[in-house]
């Protein structure tokens, strides 16, 4: 064909960090601490719920309500309504999507137009930028910056400058995207930080898109706060969540967008003209999971409590191992990931294939090819203008059993091979 085939909206978006690195990871035998998914399964009650759904009659395998399986939207509305202290209308204020990714896509496509600006807090989950641009919007970036106090870096030390944030708002600003707990840093935004953002949203009549997929994963007594629960924010915030992250079932791809009806109706219009429905059986299974969590919320039995407790220990062990080989990890307050400063390591990176790439990309590719360990380069989570300043960070995912040290029944050999410290010493030396 002689004419230009592709639409301009896909121009420049063919590269994707996940596609690139998951391909590389599958080509080499590696310990995968790269892409953010657990190397274990969801809790057995979830697998059972899915199997029960599969056997639950013919209707479980046919189309359900387009905007969300009724049982699921009802329990989500009830569950989050209780947390937020408000009545959430399941039919008008909750939309089920194919993962949080799709919720983000629906939100941008439904609400962002050519000429709109969308403020993105850096470092950001990489899809926000192409999604804003595909919707014709202009991303405007505001970086979190480290303010180092003491010797141990924590994600709490990464802050926004209020004056700088305020300077990014103007009449063209349509929305601001926040992600708390943040990927890749693990920052959990505090109430005063969210209030500062909320004040600006209200002052400038701006929407807030709040990606809260890691909402249950907070450590050291940190508390996840929903910006939509702040005064004046429910009616201008789209809150996005994920069953995949909540229940360690990332492959189920069930997510949701929750917001006031007058905004959600636009997401629904886009949804009904893009995928129209989401699969039925996994929605039933997630509904069962949420019902269980609603019943045991706040108790020892709650999975939303057990999971962060398990990960808490893994997080500390990974940090300790990284420090033992001279790296500077940033201890995350929440989420699945730990970002580490690699500037203290001097490694000869001789691969001619990667010579034009940022240092962290080159380092991670070397780590994968030569050392059998996968991570993700953090400069991919920065805007083009700031990427060059953040080439010394890589991201590890610690939702991995392979990081366990205290498996009672494992053999000595297993313990020796997979002890974090030894493992990383092997890698780095």
């Amino acid at each position, binding site marked *: *064909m002689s*004419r230009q*085939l592709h*639409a*301009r*909206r896909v121009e420049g*978006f063919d590269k*994707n960090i*996940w*596609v690139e690195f*998951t391909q590389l990871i599958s080509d080499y035998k590696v310990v995968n601490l790269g892409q953010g*998914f657990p190397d274990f*399964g969801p809790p057995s009650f979830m*697998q059972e719920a*899915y199997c029960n759904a*599969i*056997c639950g009659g*013919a209707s479980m*395998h*046919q*189309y*359900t*309500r387009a905007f969300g399986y009724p049982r699921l939207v009802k329990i989500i509305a009830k569950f989050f309504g209780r947390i937020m202290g408000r009545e959430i209308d399941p039919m008008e204020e909750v939309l089920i999507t*194919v*993962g949080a990714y*799709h919720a983000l*896509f629906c939100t941008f*496509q*439904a609400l*962002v*137009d050519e000429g709109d600006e969308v403020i993105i807090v850096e470092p950001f989950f990489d*899809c926000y930028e192409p*999604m804003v641009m*595909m919707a014709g919007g202009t991303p405007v970036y505001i970086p979190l910056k480290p303010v180092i106090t003491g010797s141990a870096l924590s994600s709490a030390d990464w802050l926004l400058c209020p004056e700088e944030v305020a300077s990014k708002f103007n*009449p*063209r600003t349509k929305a601001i995207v926040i992600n708390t707990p943040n990927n890749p840093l693990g920052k959990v935004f505090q109430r005063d930080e969210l209030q500062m953002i909320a004040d600006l949203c209200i002052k400038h*009549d701006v*929407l807030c898109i709040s990606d809260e997929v890691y909402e249950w994963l907070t450590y050291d007594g940190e508390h996840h706060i929903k910006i939509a629960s702040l*005064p*004046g924010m429910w*009616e201008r915030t789209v809150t996005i969540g994920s069953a995949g992250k909540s229940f360690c*079932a*990332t*492959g*189920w*791809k069930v997510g949701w967008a929750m917001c*006031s009806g007058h905004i959600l109706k636009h997401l629904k*219009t*886009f949804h*009904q*003209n*893009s*995928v*129209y*429905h*989401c*699969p*039925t*059986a*996994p929605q039933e299974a997630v509904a069962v999971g949420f019902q269980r969590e609603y019943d045991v919320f706040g108790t020892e039995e709650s999975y939303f409590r057990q999971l962060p407790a398990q990960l808490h220990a893994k997080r500390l062990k990974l940090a300790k191992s990284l420090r033992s080989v001279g790296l500077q990890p940033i201890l995350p307050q929440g989420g699945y990931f730990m970002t580490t400063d690699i500037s203290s390591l001097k490694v000869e990176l001789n691969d001619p294939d990667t010579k034009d790439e940022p240092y962290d990309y080159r380092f991670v590719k070397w780590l994968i090819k030569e050392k059998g360990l996968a991570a993700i380069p953090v400069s991919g989570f920065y805007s083009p203008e700031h990427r060059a300043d953040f080439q010394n960070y890589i991201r590890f995912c610690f939702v991995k059993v392979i990081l366990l040290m205290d498996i009672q029944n494992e053999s000595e050999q297993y313990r020796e091979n997979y002890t974090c410290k030894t493992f990383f010493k092997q890698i780095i030396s």
Partner: protein
Amino acid sequence: MMSPSSTCIFRFFTFSIIAFACSPSFLSRTLRSSTVTGFLSFLVLAALAEVVQRSGQVPLCSATVFDRALVVQGMIITQLIHRCRSACCVLEIHPLRKLFSTKSSMTSVKQKNAKRIEGLEKNVWVAFTSVASDSSIVNLGQGYPDIPPPSYVTEGLAQAVMVDRLNQYTRGFGHPSLVKALSKVYGKVYGRLIDPFKEILVTVGAYGSLMSSMQALVEEGDEVVIIEPFYDCYVPMVRMAGAKPVLIPLRTKSSKKTNFSSADWVLDQDELASKFNSKTKAIIINTPNNPIGKVFTRSELQVIADLCIKHDVLCFSDEVYEWLIYRGHEHVKIATLPGMWDRTITIGSAGKTFSVTGWKLGWSIGPEHLVKHLQTVMQNTLYACATPLQEAVARGLLHDFELMEQPDCYFSSLAVELQGKRDRLACILQQAGMSPVVPEGGYFMIVDVTALNQDLSHMEEDKPYDYKFVEWMIKEKKLAAIPVTAFCGDESRKQFEKYIRLCFIKQDSTLDAAATILKNWSKA
């Protein structure tokens, strides 16, 4: 007063400004501005529009520009009101944040939707699926089976869910075992090697494939030819991609009085050729067609292919019902015609193949230079489809691949089962005095209700006859169908408004219940 010549010049000048101001991009930029300049611009435009309105005789300009001036005036006044409200809310916002924020958001200009979804809120399915939950209604409306899917398919899903790693993310463009299985099955069907990683994309249903194709390959300034009646999502998807849908109806050429078939509905070749021009980017075809059930013949597809090649146009071929072909007919893939592989995206559906519409898995198959753009869209929109479902579809495909061309193969056994249901439904519709159009493929049948002479004048809403008929039928006869004008543009309404669509992939008990209603039709 001005002399006649200066009046003319003044009017010409004024109308030119108004005409320019009516251009969408200028208006949107001006109306967004909150600066003093923007505000003054409003006043100038409002004044000019007022002058035009009061100028009376307008020999120099057409009524269109005159009307536009009134519209512009109206818009400006509305915007001024909005801006005043927003300004008030900003001023009062801090001490009374909670009280005023709801009010301000309800009138907020910025919380308006993006232009791409303008006018796309209505959807025939959302309106009619509430019927599905009412068990007193016999539902032959929405197209999904009420018969169970094959057990090996659902068992495959249960097995996949019990494997830990199959509950986590898989490859974005399609789970490896699924794309390999698709490559195997379709490699055989197409008679060519299909690269599972470069020539296949797995999507959220065929719907997702249609969307990915539009977003990847269609944009503002493009035209897309769509054959009526069409599956209703094609037009909104084309519009959402910023392009213009160009419709062409199938027409009945036959002078038959009875025994109508979907084969009687054909495209007028000259009319079709007239729809192609330099702006045409793609044509969407659906074979077997929903709702008519037409299976395009090789020669019909050749006509379309010739036009695609002549005008350098892409073809999106929606073939979700490809396995449901009745005796005496053959499904032909347009991508197999000479010169067409390189310009065609062929769309398929696990939901329709295995009677699992609620699994929402579909696929796009085509040449790498097209599929790579769909993959770009995928990685920036959904990233990946669900893993356990993909694994189960892969196992189902491999199971039936081994049985292909044998009677046990679900791809053919389902068609045999449905043929009986098709014939039965056609018979009972005829007996009730309606005129069914017997489909060559798919699982829908459209039926002409003219002969029933049902008086619906008591229903006053301004809707096409078939919408009113279906609403009346649901309420009075407890039988649900879908109005066929939902599948066509406004201009073709008259042609299709006496038809309703019935779905026959239903259990015998459902069809029995429908038969009872139809038998007693004239008695109530």
